[in-house]
């Protein structure tokens, strides 16, 4: 799992960390039964305060994505397949909305956008 933070975004750091870990869990990048990096390790790596990571982890515990195993760390729990799918689809919907907005502001037609999506799809 790689977390990339923006220091100029209006989204708070803990929120950015939480979202990226949540996506990694939903998509299976971090498997059930694995431990998240320790709070202090991640804080040092990302150059954020310990409290910032603590806040992100506590929220993930509240969302029942991870469990705090005292003394051992934060354990990734089984993902509810339906919830994961909904979250991933929501993520896609957001990206599509951005794509359409960008296309409209570039005065592109729907066909042009669809063609670009197809090209991108085939490249991957």
């Amino acid at each position, binding site marked *: 799992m790689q977390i990339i933070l923006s220091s100029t975004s209006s989204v708070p*750091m803990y929120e950015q960390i939480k979202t990226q870990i949540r996506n990694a869990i939903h998509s299976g990048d971090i498997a059930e039964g694995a431990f998240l990096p320790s709070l202090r390790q991640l804080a040092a790596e990302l*150059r954020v305060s310990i*409290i910032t990571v603590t806040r992100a982890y*506590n929220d993930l515990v509240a969302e029942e994505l991870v469990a705090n195993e005292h003394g051992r760390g934060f354990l990734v729990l089984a993902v509810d397949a339906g919830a994961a799918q909904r979250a991933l689809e929501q993520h896609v919907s957001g990206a599509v909305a951005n794509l359409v907005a960008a296309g409209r502001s570039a005065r592109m037609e729907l066909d042009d956008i669809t063609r670009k999506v197809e090209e991108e799809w085939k490249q991957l």
Partner: protein
Amino acid sequence: MEATVTTQAVAITGLQLRRGSFALRDVNVGIPTGFVTGLVGPNGAGKTTLIKALLGLIAPDAGTLRLFDDQDAGTSAAQDRIGVVLDRVTAAPEWRAGSIGRRIGALYTQWDETYFQQLLERFDVPAGNRVNELSRGQSVKLSLAMALAHRPELLVLDEPSSGLDPVARRDLADILREFMLDPNHTVLFSTHITPDLDDLADHIIVLTAGRVAYAGMLDELHERFAVVRGRAPFPENARPATIGLRLESSGAYEALIRTDDTALFGSDAMIEAASTDDVVVHFAEQARATRGGSDPGPSVADREEIH
């Protein structure tokens, strides 16, 4: 939370300390174990005095400073567990950096000479140079190496980042983060350059004119305070809610308020989250106003100081 019980590396209660015209007044504050606490305030607010008191270098007039639950400030047992970085290297100017361990190591029970030499190398401090031949950045790093080499639990740094370039400041923050990998470690970091604490400090103590204006989590500070700016007329009923109110001759105003008080201002007032600097500046302004503008005049004896 990671730790269910928060212990205090430092507990200060009822501290009074007078030095000339300056005084720390009724300071009650704790520094939690396992976190980085920033100590901020304008020059002359008492940051260094507070640090010297907790190191036992100055005796308070009243109150207690307890370290690690059960030790008084200034005892050798407490000193052994504290690493200190002050504004100058605490070594003779003619000593060579690499020889310092042999000279002062015996003062500590856990001095680790191998580790000290490794730190000098890692921090790019030339071991053959004399203390007075080092740059500001190298001096801070030498102080840090001296502080870390005796394996302290609490690291106290007084204005370590002033005079450092951006690269050295980042190195310093990285070294502190590495120190904080151990949950039993604690850092107290004083500075008047508050952006140095962003993304580093967990807790913050704002000191203005010898008093604690705010002590708590840094991100809560940003949530609890806001800056309000508006055009005339200033809503007089809101005056008691303002901290460090500034009224321009045009009638435009600016003040720090608690987020709960935003409703006192009309919809055309602009309200924004407060930065750490906003909090420091407005509390300092408030302290100056309540003392009749006499702060910090060195010759002015403030009769209020001792209760």
